[in-house]
């Protein structure tokens, strides 16, 4: 596989509200996961935030980070998912 990356894409979908970025970035900082890029958009009246996160120096494994994000999402009434970058690379780039 060409240069194995250890980056994940975090997506937050739901109603826009105060503190989404703060909450998610705090959670990622606690895990020592580095936010490389961030974008926001509104798709079909839903607020959508997408983050590219580097897990190279992360203190927790990917599945644990994913679990924490899911829990945080539920607490905030949002849907938060994380997926490895390679998945998107394979699916959408020939």
């Amino acid at each position: 596989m060409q240069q194995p990356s250890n980056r994940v894409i975090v997506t937050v979908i739901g109603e826009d509200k105060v503190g989404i970025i703060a909450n998610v970035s705090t959670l990622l900082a606690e895990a020592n996961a580095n936010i490389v890029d961030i974008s926001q958009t509104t798709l079909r009246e839903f607020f959508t935030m997408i983050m590219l996160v580097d897990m190279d120096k992360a203190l927790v494994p990917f599945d644990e980070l994913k679990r924490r994000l899911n829990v945080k999402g539920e607490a905030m009434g949002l849907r938060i998912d994380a997926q490895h970058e390679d998945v998107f690379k394979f699916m959408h780039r020939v």
Partner: protein
Amino acid sequence: MSIQFSPQEILETIRMVQMENLDIRTITMGISLRNCAHPDLEVAAAKAYEKICRAAERLVAVGDEIERDYGIPIINKRVSVTPVALVAESSASRDYVVFARALERAAATVGVNFLGGFSALVHKGMTPGDEALINSIPEALAVTERVCASVNVGTTRAGINMDAVRRMGEIVCETAQRTADRDGVGCAKLVVFCNAVEDNPFMAGAFHGIGEPDCVINVGVSGPGVVLRAIEQQPDIDLGELASVIKRTAFKITRMGELVGRSASAKLGVPFGIVDLSLAPTPAQGDSVARILEVMGLERVGTHGSTAALAMLNDAVKKGGAMASSHVGGLSGAFIPVSEDAAMIDAAIAGSITFDKLEAMTCVCSVGLDMIAVPGDTPPETIAAIIADEAAIGMINRKTTAVRVIPAPGKKVGDMVEFGGLLGRAPVMALHRESSAAFVRRGGRIPAPLQAFNN
């Protein structure tokens, strides 16, 4: 480094995994047992057990690891082995059940739910080892849970071995009787093939062919739910455009198989064989191939138009998938098992799909008459004739076909048969009552067909 994907692309992928049951159906490790042959069958079986346990020791752990890394569920981890008849034949023993038991123990030790390869290739004739294996099938499938058996009775190049077909009719009935207390579930683990492929990762018909390396990783992708959703969103487009939608979807699904296969191969240090891009249903809601045909515009699967819809679906899946993977193989097409597909079960209960229509549909898709419950008092010659019909379709059309029917002991047309789990449930379907016995008893071989004048 910035995000290289549009929000739409990202959300599409998330939706496929979260809502539409996109998953990798199976990672199957093919293991050669050719170096396990021994004059003493007990020793051969012990060698096979050890080799499987050594080769597949980390298979399940690596599968789980990939599942965590990529967040894509990998439903099954499985093992396929060299057709056992080839390995066991060197021994003096003519009862291969001991070998099946060793395979069962190996499957349990490495933690896989099915192990395929209790098989023989007899399309032109039988050796004593092939005969011994076939005779051992009913008991082997009754005393094991995970072992799957298959027998290849025909090929396009060799024709059909009708003596083997006749014998397999008896073996299917005997296997059902041996597992009568469980609705004949033994037959759910027994496939009779024409043009069997050597690298199929899907059970029950998987075996590790003789042209394969010592050890190999094959991946079976699925995703009827994803295709279903893509079609549902396009109620008004014509069939040409619909084929394009299916191709694009199949491409994306297959890419996931390629990613998982490469990753598993690297982690296990085993060569990557093929991606099998089949649409394989499960009894779960939203995971039905029959439902796709209905969303294409049929009131219920089995009605007129089903064969055409399936032909298009099958071809579009192949076209999209072929581009997505460096090596496509296995069966690669849409599966139409009855008991494993919720919409197919409904259609069978409602009577809109019949045995004959299923046979017609197998002409245009992989693989064959699959997981169909038939009356328990069906004569062996009728089962053999069903096998002969299906093998003829495969032989003439140069494709793989298979029969996996279950003559459910004590059950009549309309009764329900419950296998549970992935094997599902099915109503017993009606067969023709007229006898085919005289035809089947003629025996001999149906000659290989001409490869020209194709009309």
